[in-house]
């Protein structure tokens, strides 16, 4: 075991996989020599060579297309999109190509690319460096969508993504790269060094895609969250002294409905959370499915804690961010109902 932040854990995942499998290669804008603007691919070029860790031109569509072609030949490309806000030029290649090659060729070709991309706000990134566009990709049959919330999961899930026979869009909540975050702006940055999920094995391990985890047990209300908001939800429950059960979804596609339903059937109350804008977000899918599965166990309407239906503002970032107070309000609402 070693202490790792999420950047180091992701780097360790890539390092492990590149060591084990010569077909694994990594590339992206600034992702080669320099090791990525967030340093996730640091040292890989030195260790594995220019043709396994290299810089790509600034063209996300070309990067995605190149990755698809490489995967069609049997390589395992891990392509970085520098910020998930920049993924849109590559959308046609993901939505119309990568996700459907297996289907439209009836399995004759497969293109299991891993797309790594930092997402979410909380780093003063303004509207072009803060988005959480995960819901777009949950509308795309053929890709899996993953978003870890801590270093241990990040490494295990990235290894699973690289080993997956299917394409994976792997979202990295960048607010959590360097430390856990409880949703309060300002103050000193916390360290993963003091967090149990900052203990990361140095070797190879993987966590199953499609499995959620109950990270805080409780009986009063279930909070389903993923990414940064998992930690915020836990902190909010502590702060309010509410016996909330918090589920870290980890995988959005395919999401773990069993774990969610078991919890909601137990607590009878549910909050679903996302950092993205509210309308048509992934929380809406969760709410719809939960009411289908658990309607007769529900004591109160399902509440959503989300970003606002606005672009992510720069100066008023913390008014946008769904922090602990919004979770506490939602918990009070469902508990009072």
């Amino acid at each position: 075991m070693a202490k790792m932040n999420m950047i180091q854990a992701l780097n360790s995942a890539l390092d492990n996989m590149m060591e084990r499998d010569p077909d694994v290669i990594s590339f992206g804008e600034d992702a080669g020599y320099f090791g990525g603007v967030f340093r996730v691919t640091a040292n890989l070029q030195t260790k594995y060579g220019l043709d396994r860790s290299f810089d790509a031109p600034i063209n996300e569509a070309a990067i995605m297309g190149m990755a698809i072609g490489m995967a069609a030949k049997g390589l395992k490309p891990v392509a970085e999109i520098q910020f998930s806000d920049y993924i849109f030029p590559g959308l046609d290649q993901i939505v119309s190509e990568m996700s459907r090659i297996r289907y439209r060729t009836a399995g004759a070709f497969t293109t299991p690319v891993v797309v790594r991309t930092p997402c979410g706000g909380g780093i003063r990134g303004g509207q072009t460096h803060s988005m959480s566009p995960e819901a777009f990709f949950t509308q795309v049959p053929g890709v899996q969508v993953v978003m870890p919330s801590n270093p241990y999961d990040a490494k295990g899930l990235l290894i699973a993504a690289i080993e997956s026979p299917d394409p994976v869009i792997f979202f990295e909540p960048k607010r959590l790269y360097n430390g856990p975050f409880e949703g309060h702006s300002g103050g000193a940055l916390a360290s993963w060094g003091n967090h149990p999920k900052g203990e990361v094995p140095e070797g190879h391990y993987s966590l199953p895609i499609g499995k959620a985890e109950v990270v805080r047990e409780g009986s009063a209300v279930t909070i389903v969250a993923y990414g940064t908001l998992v930690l915020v939800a836990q902190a909010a429950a502590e702060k309010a002294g509410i016996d909330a059960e918090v589920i870290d979804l980890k995988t959005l596609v395919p999401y773990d409905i069993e774990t969610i339903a078991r919890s909601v059937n137990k607590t009878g109350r549910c909050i679903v959370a996302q950092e993205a804008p509210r309308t048509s977000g992934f929380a809406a899918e969760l709410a719809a499915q939960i009411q289908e599965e658990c309607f007769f166990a529900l004591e109160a309407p399902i509440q959503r804690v989300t970003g606002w239906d606005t672009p992510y503002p720069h100066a008023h970032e913390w008014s946008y961010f769904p922090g602990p107070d919004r979770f506490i309000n939602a918990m009070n609402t469902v508990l009072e109902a």
Partner: protein
Amino acid sequence: MAHTEPRFHVPSPHVRPGDKPDFSHIAIPPAGEAKRPDTAVPGMETQDLALGLVRVLDHNHQAVGEWDPKLDADVLREGLRHMVLTRVYDDRMLKLQRQGKMSFYMKSTGEEAVAVAGAMAMSKDDMVFPSYRQQGILFARGRDIVEMMCHCISNSRDNLKGRQLPVHYTWAEGKFFSISGNLATQLPQAVGYAMACEYRGDGEIAATWIGDGSTAEGDFHGALVLASTYRAPVIVNVVNNQWAISTFQGIAAGEAPTFAYKGLGYGLASLRVDGNDFLAVYAATQWAAKRARDGHGTTVIEHFTYRADAHSTSDDPSGYRPKGENEIWPLGDPVERLKQHLIGLGEWDDERHAALEKELNELVIASYKEAESHGTLHDGPLSPVESIFEDVYAEPDWRLRRQRQDLGV
């Protein structure tokens, strides 16, 4: 009719429906004029070739000049056979579409040489990322015609389980990648595939095809950046057949003198070739394939040709171009030109040609009969309904398993 001078420049073709077909504005350099440089030439030194026109067959159907690939008569006859088969197949499939046997069809009439000669000049181990008008590659690589038809009529034997529109073929064993309806997406994919060939060091290269209109897509330019940056062993074929559905090539070309010329901006070797000249297409592809295999990178080849028929069965060209243009296309008909070349060599004659057409017609008719015995889109049998839930992922997850139950299959 009132005429308002446009306030900004919008290119327009020389003639429109009702006008007399006219290609007098197209300069056709004589066959044999183009120089054939060494395949290791720096890309920028191909400027004359990007602006000119590589032609081998002259107006007497004789092979002339440095680009003559000097092929054996057997190879020429094989090429002719694949081209005639492509044409016969297209004509029959169009008729069948008109009879309601399939939802959609796209002919490649007039462009047979681009696909057939291109495929024959490469190794069968090389990967191709075609667009939707290169069915000739499949014939050149020996794809079973019945299988092609079963795909087009989406029946129980369609190798794509009825998931793709007709003519969007895939044939993995023949190194023929899946055709997309989204234009130009295959370009960066072909480059990535070619880079993976280099990575594997297996001597394989890749080729891709794109229409003149689709060169306006970002993926074309992104692919050329990649190809240039990583010196990928890939051949980028731009099939300039003058028309993107109803839009003439000038809307995509803009002020660029040729489509091949665009490759020079990326420092890539770029050739403009008479796409109706089997020998020229063969020679250019052979040149580009050697260049790629020897580690000198990508070649852009513009195939200058003419889409002799409609874009697809959903299109009516009489709405945007004069009738009869294909008959006066200055570079003629690719099948007729290769036929006349072989006759000139004393290696072919009208009787043998008529017999070939008859044989291939019968083959296509018999193949359709067999294909139809496996069902049609209209009357079935199709692939099993439950197959719609297969191949979305390697294994269906709970959502797909439940949805299959919901559908009751």
